[in-house]
């Protein structure tokens, strides 16, 4: 592939995903985009691609998630590099056999004879009263499926670089993006991020907060407000969930001795649970207090605005947990 050029000006998150895909399409004719309403790019990551690349490479599909993800698995095995926009990541449940049993297993079952260079992109998280089937963050299910890489960028910089890394990877990668962050602004700098990376911002000394997507934004806001109280919070944005950046996660807790793990998925068997368990196993000696998990309780996402707000961790919840961790 040709040298990567990061967009220099400030970008919004969803266009940064589209920028990354379009660069990959220019570099490599095997990259083809398909899925639901990708030509108008209703969800953002594919907007504008049809204008440049035309209907041969930006293909609108019927609402047949199992078949168009399955066809992408076959096309990836056959030498293309499909990028499939599934709209809402909850729609992946309809295609879950193709993701879990097929994309995530074929390489292993065949003893490494083939590769599945596939990207499945979908929104994840609550954007305001979309109710139980269009608001979830199912990242833990993708991790449990095995054989899938999973990234969840929270900034335009992460979005650009992680999407590039996803398209260039020879593994199936699920790229999640938060619908309420589609217009989040930020600069995309030339320092690349890849699968397995995390971003630490701000750096702190008293307590580590681990978060992803919208939760990373709320964690950063909580860190700013706690700074005024004299509490130094380190936020580790776990923008790659598979591979999990354990080195960064462990190093942070070795330094701060305290951990709050935040997740927009449901608590039971969540990403938060996995990070907390890993810390308990591998950094127990460094912990000065119990690990705190904040996640959606084991209920679906409700419709009414006040109910939706009640089940998803907010900035105040994060600040309270971090404060308790430090002050006991």
């Amino acid at each position, binding site marked *: 592939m040709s040298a990567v050029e990061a967009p220099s000006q400030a970008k919004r998150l969803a266009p940064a995903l589209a920028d990354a895909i379009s660069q990959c399409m220019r570099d490599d004719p095997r990259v083809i985009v398909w899925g639901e309403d990708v030509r108008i790019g209703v969800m953002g990551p594919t907007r504008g691609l049809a204008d440049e690349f035309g209907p041969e490479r930006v293909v609108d*599909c019927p609402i047949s998630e199992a078949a168009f*993800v399955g066809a992408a698995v076959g096309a990836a095995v*056959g030498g293309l590099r*499909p990028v499939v926009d599934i709209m809402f990541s909850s729609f992946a449940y309809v295609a879950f056999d193709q993701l879990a049993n097929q994309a995530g297993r074929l390489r292993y079952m065949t003893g490494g004879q*083939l590769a599945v260079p596939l990207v499945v992109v979908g929104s994840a998280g609550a954007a305001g009263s979309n109710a139980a089937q269009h608001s979830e963050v199912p990242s833990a299910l993708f991790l449990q499926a095995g054989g899938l890489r999973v990234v969840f960028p929270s900034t335009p910089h992460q979005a650009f670089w992680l999407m590039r890394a996803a398209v260039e990877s020879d593994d199936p990668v699920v790229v999640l993006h938060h619908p309420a962050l589609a217009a989040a602004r930020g600069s995309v700098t030339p320092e690349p991020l890849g699968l397995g990376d995390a971003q630490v911002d701000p750096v702190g000394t008293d307590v580590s907060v681990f978060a992803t997507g919208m939760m990373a934004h709320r964690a950063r806001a909580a860190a700013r407000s706690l700074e005024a109280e004299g509490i130094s919070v380190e936020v580790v944005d776990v923008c790659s969930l598979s591979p999990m950046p354990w080195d960064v996660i462990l190093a942070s807790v070795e330094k701060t001795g305290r951990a709050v793990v935040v997740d927009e998925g449901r608590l039971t068997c969540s990403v938060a649970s996995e990070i907390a368990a890993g810390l308990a196993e591998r950094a127990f000696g460094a912990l000065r207090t119990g690990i705190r998990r904040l996640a959606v309780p084991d209920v679906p996402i409700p419709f009414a605005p006040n109910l939706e707000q009640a089940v998803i961790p907010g900035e105040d919840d994060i600040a309270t947990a971090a404060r308790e961790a430090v002050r006991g």
Partner: protein
Amino acid sequence: MSRESVLRERGADWLRTMVRIRRFEEKLAELHRSGELVGVVHLSIGQEATAVGICSSLRPGDQITSTHRGHHHMLARGLEPRRMYAEILGRAGGYCGGKGGSMHVSSFSEGAVGANGIVGGGIAHAVGLALAAQKLGKGSVAVAFFGDGAANQGVLFESLNLAALWQVPVLFVCENNGYTEFTPTDAVTAGGSIFARAAIFGLPAEAVDGDDVIAVHRAADEALARARNGGGPAFIECRTNRWRGHHEGEESYARPYREPPRPPDPLDRLEQAMAGAGLDAAQLRSTIELEERALVAESLAAARAEPEPETSRAFEDVFA
């Protein structure tokens, strides 16, 4: 081409492959009875003509996806009995290093992309493989083998729709052996015929006698020639018979709904057709039987002598 000339040209090869499949599978039944073969194994005895009729129309570079009952597809595609036995017995020298087993035997370089343990799991893959072949200008075709059980999976209809919209070179082959696992297919399948379901998407679709290798081959040749010339997808329902149960050993817990069918043997039918075309079929059959029984025995012995996979291999090949 006349029936006689097709038989003169291809009959001996067909007979050899069909005999190989039959003797290969019979050995597996023995190994299962003796306890040497672990796991679940689904045998293709009785369905040889379908696999051989379709696969003998394929060229190098063409790709197939297969099913939990797929040994006959793999042997008909040209995979080696030795490496297949090694895979099925969980040995290091198996096609997948012993990590796939009976339901996942595959050889990517030989166009056998994958056998699938999920009913209907590989159908959409064939559409994607065909699309890739078309976009990359490979000139190859893809064949999706699946059973009558998969005819009731939604992904089949989604895949037929996509293939028809995209006009990709894919052949859907429904191997209708009469049983959906343990249940007679006609008890769980509405509408009377499976191939008619494909016709509503505008695909050329037909049902053939799946135990008549000549009929299967004729249908496949026609469909594949059309696909190679840009004519798009097609659908063939091969009506065949499963001589054994859903899987070996099921008699320990499952009572068949009805007696297994005893249709005319597809191997004997081919031999008789060859004799009818003036070939010395009986002599040929006995020679082939001797040679293939020897090949199967040698292949099994070689596979048994293979080591188990290194334990470390269990942790490899998850990611690139």
